[in-house]
């Protein structure tokens, strides 16, 4: 246990990601005087599921939120290094943040449907982008709800208030809402942490189906979940990336002692 407390001088990062869609390059992030991320280097493969694991406060959510610049909302936050999505530096001064957030969607820990109808929730992203043709909206709503495995449950009550859905349905609605704007990457910040086991299984099934079309990055506290659904896993500790590898390797033959301690449940 004691050996993990020190600096991690030499993280093990698997180098050969052939088709990276997101590249994080020497990223450090500060909240005021507190440093939350230290020199993170990471490449996220396209159309795969990548899981971020690590104990609370290790910076995995912070990293996730900096991938679509939601950390901009925190006034004291400031970064060094850069992040490229499809090759473009998203922290460049002239980069269009609104467009970035359409391309890199986000599903949050606590489901947050808008106080509108189910239909309007899913159509919201298109509407604010200026799409008002009802044929396009109808099609997109159905497609997104099907992709999020919610269509059969809500197709007869699309005009009902979204807040009347159960917790798991609300979370899948939020996934559908994110998919409706056809992002390239979907970020998920502990999407199942507030759900019961059955709802969790539904969401996991949904994620497995989505990876054929989308790149998914998921933060999770649930190691079994990471092992079940992800292709790659990144382990963070105290703001540093410790190890990044294929999930199977990570959970069976971790390269570093710290990783092994964590995934086998010896600390965390």
């Amino acid at each position, binding site marked *: 246990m004691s050996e993990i407390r020190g600096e991690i001088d030499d993280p093990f990062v698997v180098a050969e990601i052939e088709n990276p869609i997101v590249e994080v390059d020497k990223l450090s992030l500060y909240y005021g005087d507190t440093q939350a991320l230290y020199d993170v280097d990471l490449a996220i493969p396209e159309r795969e599921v990548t899981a971020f694991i690590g104990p609370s406060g290790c910076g995995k959510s912070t990293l996730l939120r900096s991938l*679509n610049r*939601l950390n901009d*909302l925190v*006034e004291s936050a400031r970064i060094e290094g850069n992040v490229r999505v499809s090759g473009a530096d998203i922290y460049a001064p002239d980069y269009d943040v*609104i*467009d970035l*957030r*359409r391309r890199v*969607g*986000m599903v*949050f*820990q*606590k*489901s*947050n*449907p*808008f*106080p*509108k109808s189910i239909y309007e929730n899913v159509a*919201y*992203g298109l509407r*604010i*982008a200026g799409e008002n043709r009802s044929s396009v909206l109808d099609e997109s709503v159905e497609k997104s709800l099907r992709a999020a495995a919610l269509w059969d449950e809500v197709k007869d009550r699309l005009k009902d*208030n979204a*807040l009347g859905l159960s*917790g798991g349905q*609300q979370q899948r609605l*939020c996934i559908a*809402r*994110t998919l409706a*704007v056809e992002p390239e990457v979907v970020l998920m910040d502990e999407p199942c942490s*507030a759900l019961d086991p059955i709802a969790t299984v539904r969401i996991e099934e949904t994620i497995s189906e989505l990876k054929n079309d989308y790149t998914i990055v998921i933060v999770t506290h649930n190691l079994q979940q990471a092992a079940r659904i992800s292709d790659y896993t990144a382990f963070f500790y105290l703001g540093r990336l410790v190890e990044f590898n294929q999930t199977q390797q990570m959970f069976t033959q971790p390269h570093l002692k710290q990783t092994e301690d964590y995934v086998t449940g010896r600390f965390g």
Partner: protein
Amino acid sequence: MTLRFWRGGDPFIWLTGSALAFCLLMISGLVGIILYNGVGVFWPSALEQLYLRDGQVVLGKVVDRQVIPDQPEAYRIQLKVGNRDAYGLDFRWVDEADIERIEQPAPVVVFERLEWGDAYGYLEEITQNDQVLAADGQDVWKALQPLLEASATRWEVIRSIEHEEMGELNRAMEDLRLEKRRLEMDGAKPEAMAELEDRDRALWERYERVSERLNAVRAENEQATVSIRLADGRERSVRVADIVRTYQPNALGVWGKIGIYCEKGWEFVAGQPRESNTEGGIFPALFGTVMMVMLMSLAAVPFGILAALYLREYAKQGLFVRLVRIAVNNLAGVPSIVFGMFGLGFFVYGVGGSIDRLFYPEALPTPTYGTGGILWASLTLALLTVPVVIVATEEALAAVPRELREGALGLGSTKFQMIWNVVLPSALPGILTGVILATARGAGEVAPLMITGVVKLAPDLPLDAYWPFFHLERKFMHLGFHIYDVGFQSPNVEAARPMVYTTALLLLLIVLALNLTAIVVRNKLRRRYASTAF
């Protein structure tokens, strides 16, 4: 044991419970007193004729009964005897020990008059143009009814001549005077002046004709009189035209009494005040109050919400914003009369005075906007309520969960789209609560109005059928001020007391109605935006 008693919190439960009970008691006491005194005012209760041991006869309505000071077992009753013109006073105390017997004579009649308050007595005879039409109780009663109707029609004619024809002439003359003045100020051309003089003469001629007609109708009003015998045997005569309403309370059945009650209640709500506001209706005050509250909300609500939006959503949260917030909170606690002083100095004299100098120089020295008016009063009250709106809106905005904001931004909303589509709808119930509180506070405020435009009597409403319809420079009446004025400033406080209670009751009802509407709206919204159930 005692330790467990204290720790268990039982005393605390009792403390909180009794605090609530005490509050409820105070409030229900307030409402109860107003209801008790206000509801029965229009009920035509029986007139009692008291025969006293010393031979006096007193006729009147019992209004109060109390122990005689220093004589614990003896009571005295207060009677409203009316006939102020004959007795000098409306009320009289009679010791119960002095009463020999009490009757409720059926033929006794109540006259509500335009002047001198009520008259109670027996019908003697009725005369028109010095001819006696009837000279016996019930015959007089029957002969009186058509005359009353005729006089009501005549009053209608007089009112329409005064308000419409004369009013129009007055306005035309005033416009002409101002036009002349303007010409003089610009250096008058004689021919233009002469033309105006001609128009002036024409107006005066029309005025003469209208006054003649008016005087003719007025003369007809003088023709009929009814003479009555008071309880003590004296005779008095009453002009039929002065009678507002007459009834025989002791002869009326329950339905008749209910009819009179409703009629008087309606007159109270919809009629004009009489007798320096102590009788008649309060419609101008009612109208003024409602219109002022609306103007105030129109000014305060949008500004308050917009200011709060900037403060909460756009401004960089730091020392300066904190200071602004503290200042706003303090403003919400500043005594209202201070706002009144500011309104008088800034709106009335400053803004109003400048408007007068720029746009109405010909009317000076008579001020147009440079004097109290409904616009300035509403703006002053808006200033008073804006802090409440800001504070409440800010709190409602702060209560919108961060996840909801991030969800909207995460889908590619701009900040404006997030605020407009997600934050505002979610915060709306809370914002409405603040608006209700603010409006209720504004509706009940009197002190700042007294120096910015409320008057005792303003028969011309600030909204009428004449261009430009809204006369925001006009002074207006207000229920709160009406209560103060009638209750404490009127020459006959005792007679005005029922009016005070009924007006207070009406003010309570209005505030209740405003709040209920707003609460219903808010609950509808709240159901629509009910928070997520987890």
